């Protein structure tokens, strides 16, 4: 559909059912507590390659904490995390990033003093290598590298339709656009696993639709596995392949959206009657 | 040009203002008085301009650069730091620097430092007088053997300057030199230094302090009950405010001095009459006659006499920096002249020569009686025999380190 997406191998043609796909990340018996507060209690689930995995649950259920555990920002007291078949030791967030896990944040965590373009370029940090002396000179290799990556970033900008704000400092952007830039920044990392924490909070319908479109495109044409936290059930139901439901640190359901939606435990804990 | 331009680098602000203000007042008032009373020197008025340095080297250099183009005759930096910066420039710009009783001791060697003057004495002269005086108290220099002499000093170029001489004397006379540096930022917080003094129990304490360091040290000494009569400061630790901080308890504290004590001098009366009463100065009349004020006056006397001598030598009325140097090198402030100036007994007669820009003049000791300073000794000659060779060696070393150091252009006549 555009250069950026076409650039990478497309998802396998005859999509196998998500349950049969290879496991990309497995969380086994993870528990995490802060002092007396148990944020996560003995949770296990997996994320398979190429799927959109939703994580839902009431406020304070431990969803964000779960993402933090996955990308190394929190270290669980118990349990293991297996990434691409290998059990992962305790690791630093930047190591997670270099192994292909990117994310967006619940409270937008853009680099406020930088422009949209620079923010997205920053996603490419791990992929740029010219050393300091080339940077000093600029002309030559450093510049070439910069331009090469700039092209990739421009593709993302086109894809997300944010050309107009390319040179705007992100601090001044309205919330919805900030979320979009944040997605762009995560995409620029070309991750294997993309963690999205409430990407559509504070958006109106139209923007949610746009965002959904982007997520689906990224997932389908780019083959990126996505873990998604969202409170809008419409979005969760429509987009996700499988849903895991947390409630105050415990897992109360796990399965395809329809199944989860019908589960009484989920309705009681989270959805409420009207849904 | 019908005036002689004398810029005054002063500091009435900043952490050292406490000492700087009195000096500045003294310097300014005397020269101003000459203008008012005599219409200047040799019939030519003095153009005075104060430039505030705040005792800060950067600002000092800035003042220098800003004023040197106006035909400055001489600079009095009143800061060892600024003096050091000006030393190399003086030769290039051909403007003498008069660092009266401070600055680089080695600069007394006029053959190496033709443009720098530190009459009447260098720090090394001062330090030697202190040791000599202590020796006298102990009944002879040979009795210093085994004694402990503590040296508390402002930890900057200024305070460290006398150390080489003190070390040499320590070796020579067999006393132990204990050093207590006071960092500039800690001037008002000297309890550690004085605790150390208390532990080490030195027989005498010598102080090279400035600004707020002095009163603090005197208070601390009182606090640890150090015998005040064994505590001797350099001439820059001799301010009225310095000793007054200790009040009655500071009784017995001594300091070196080379300028007059008190205000019973004709010139000071003239200042009162022509300058203060005429409202031409901001000086608080009560401070006239204070040690530092008088020091400032003496500084201006030397400037004025330098100008006068230069006028005589060159026959010009408005002179240049180069003429000024000639004047200073031929300076001869003898008793008769002092009397003429209304300053009899204000200072020891001084004479500058081409080789010796300091002169190693005698100094006296003054003592705080709880109310004011009293002269406590006669004039004491510095140990020129020790000091002079050290000076020459240091001057040589300086020239070597800063090679190629410009040779003196017109050799000394002898």
């Amino acid at each position, binding site marked *: 559909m555009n250069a950026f997406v076409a650039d990478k191998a497309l998802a396998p043609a005859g999509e196998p059912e998500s349950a049969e796909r290879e496991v990309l990340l497995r969380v086994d018996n993870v528990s995490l507590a802060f002092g007396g507060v148990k944020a996560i209690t003995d949770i296990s689930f997996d994320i398979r390659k190429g799927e959109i995995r939703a994580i839902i649950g009431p406020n304070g259920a431990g969803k964000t904490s779960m993402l933090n555990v996955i990308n190394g920002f929190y270290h669980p007291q118990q349990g293991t995390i297996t990434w691409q078949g290998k059990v992962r030791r305790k690791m630093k967030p930047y190591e997670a990033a270099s192994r292909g896990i990117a994310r967006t944040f619940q409270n937008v965590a853009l680099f406020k003093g930088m422009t949209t373009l620079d923010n997205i370029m920053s996603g490419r940090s791990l992929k740029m290598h010219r050393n300091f002396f080339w940077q000093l000179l600029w002309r030559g290799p450093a510049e070439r590298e910069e331009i090469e990556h700039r092209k990739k970033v421009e593709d993302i900008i086109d894809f997300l339709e944010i050309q107009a704000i390319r040179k705007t400092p992100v601090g001044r952007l309205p919330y919805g656009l900030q979320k979009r830039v944040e997605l762009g920044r995560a995409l620029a990392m070309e991750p294997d696993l993309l963690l999205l924490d409430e990407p559509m909070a504070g958006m109106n319908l139209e923007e949610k639709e746009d965002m959904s479109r982007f997520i689906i495109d990224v997932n389908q044409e780019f083959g990126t596995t996505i873990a998604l936290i969202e409170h809008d059930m419409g979005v969760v139901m429509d987009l996700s392949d499988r849903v895991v439901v947390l409630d105050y640190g415990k897992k109360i359901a796990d399965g395809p959206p329809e199944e989860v939606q019908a589960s009484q435990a989920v309705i009681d804990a989270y959805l409420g009657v009207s849904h | 040009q019908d005036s002689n331009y004398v810029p005054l680098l002063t500091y009435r602000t900043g952490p050292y203002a406490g000492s700087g203000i009195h000096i500045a007042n003294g310097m300014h008032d005397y020269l101003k008085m000459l203008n008012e009373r005599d219409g200047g020197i040799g019939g030519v008025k003095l153009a005075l301009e104060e430039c505030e340095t705040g005792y800060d080297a950067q600002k000092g250099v800035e003042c220098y650069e800003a004023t040197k183009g106006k035909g400055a005759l001489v600079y009095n930096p009143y800061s060892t730091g600024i003096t050091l910066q000006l030393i190399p420039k003086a030769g290039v710009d051909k403007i003498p620097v008069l660092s009266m009783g401070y600055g680089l001791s080695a600069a007394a060697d006029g053959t190496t430092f033709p443009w720098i003057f530190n009459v009447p004495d260098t720090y090394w002269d001062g330090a030697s007088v202190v040791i000599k005086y202590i020796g006298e108290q102990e009944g002879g220099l040979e009795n210093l053997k085994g004694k402990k002499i503590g040296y508390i000093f402002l930890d900057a170029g200024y305070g460290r300057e006398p150390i080489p001489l003190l070390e040499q004397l320590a070796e020579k006379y067999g006393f132990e030199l204990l050093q207590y540096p006071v960092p500039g930022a800690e001037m008002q917080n000297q309890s*550690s230094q004085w605790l150390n003094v208390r532990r080490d129990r030195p027989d005498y304490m010598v102080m090279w302090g400035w600004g707020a360091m002095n009163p603090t040290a005197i*208070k601390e000494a009182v606090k640890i009950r150090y015998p005040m009569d064994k505590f001797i400061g350099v001439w820059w630790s001799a301010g009225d405010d310095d000793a007054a901080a200790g009040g009655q308890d500071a009784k017995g504290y001594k300091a070196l001095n080379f300028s007059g004590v008190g205000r019973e001098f004709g010139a000071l009366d003239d200042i009162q009459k022509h300058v203060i009463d005429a409202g031409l100065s901001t000086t608080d009349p009560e401070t006239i006659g204070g040690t530092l004020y008088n020091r400032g006056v003496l500084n201006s006397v030397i400037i004025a006499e330098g100008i006068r001598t230069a006028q005589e030598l060159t026959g010009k009325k408005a002179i240049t920096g180069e003429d000024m140097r000639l004047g200073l090198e031929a300076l001869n402030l003898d008793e008769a002249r002092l009397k003429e100036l209304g300053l009899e007994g204000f200072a020891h007669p001084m004479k500058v020569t081409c080789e010796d820009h300091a002169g190693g003049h005698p100094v006296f000791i003054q003592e705080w009686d709880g109310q004011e300073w009293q002269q406590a000794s006669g004039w004491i000659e510095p140990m020129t025999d020790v000091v002079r060779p050290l000076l020459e060696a240091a001057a040589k070393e300086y020239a070597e380190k800063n090679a190629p150091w410009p040779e003196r252009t017109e050799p000394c006549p002898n």
Partner: protein
Amino acid sequence: MLYDIFIDPFVQMYQMPDFFLQVLWEGFVAGILYALIALGFVLIFKASGVFNFAQGIMVVFAALTLVGLHENGVPAFLALILTIAVMGVLAYGVERVVMRPLVNQPDIILLMATIGLTYFLVGFGEFVFGGEPKRMITEELGLPTGSTAFEMGERGLVILQHIDIAAAVIAVIMVTALGIFFNKTRIGRALRAVADDHQAALSVGISLNQIWAIVWFAAGLVALATGIMWGARSDVSFALEIVAFKALPVLILGGFTSIPGAIVGGLIIGFGEKIGELYWGGLVGGGIESWLAYIIALVFLLFRPQGLFGERIIERI
């Protein structure tokens, strides 16, 4: 060498117990005095998140006003009251001219503004009072000036200055009062809220103007107390401003936001600095006091980045 570092100092402490006690006392006093300065910083920081660099100059300014008024013939206690009034005016002015327009700005901007204020006060203070050092009117204010010596052993002597004891008492009273004020009252809570988020504090109806005026006034009073105590030790002059830097390690050690932290930090620094200087300083030529405090603080910080009693730095995404 190793002996000098590890054994000799302790031998000395043992051999001269009176001296060691004196060192401890000096450390204690220094600590209390640092704590007094630090307290002023903590007050303002806690209540507005502003690191008030001008605290040092406020100390000088308060003391100068007091002494300056007295020099001009105002009786000591009237001068004290007038000085308090002046500090009130200053607080109001600062709130009006500096803080109010800079609401909701980043820390560093506010920090800079207080440095600007420092410049202004230095210029203004010297303009009004001149640069000469002045003597603190300790006796006139009824503060004790004498000293008491305790004999220990044959030659031993421990000297306690009465003014130092007074300083300690005043410091303890102020810390207790402020501690109660901050933690137990409605305004105290509001102050802490303001420090967290100016805008949110505005939105719940906390009047920043009023709060800032109060806090700056309180800091002014602390500055006055500090100025009197420091002035009694040395003289009142602008050189005193530099002493304020000594409060910074105390501050980070105790934690910017903690009132008891100021005292505990002050004491740790005071003791550490004096003992370090007197027993180890000589090994490297002395004068290590100028940075030892910072190094002590730094070491503590490496283990507790928010200082001993500081509020945890919230890191969350």
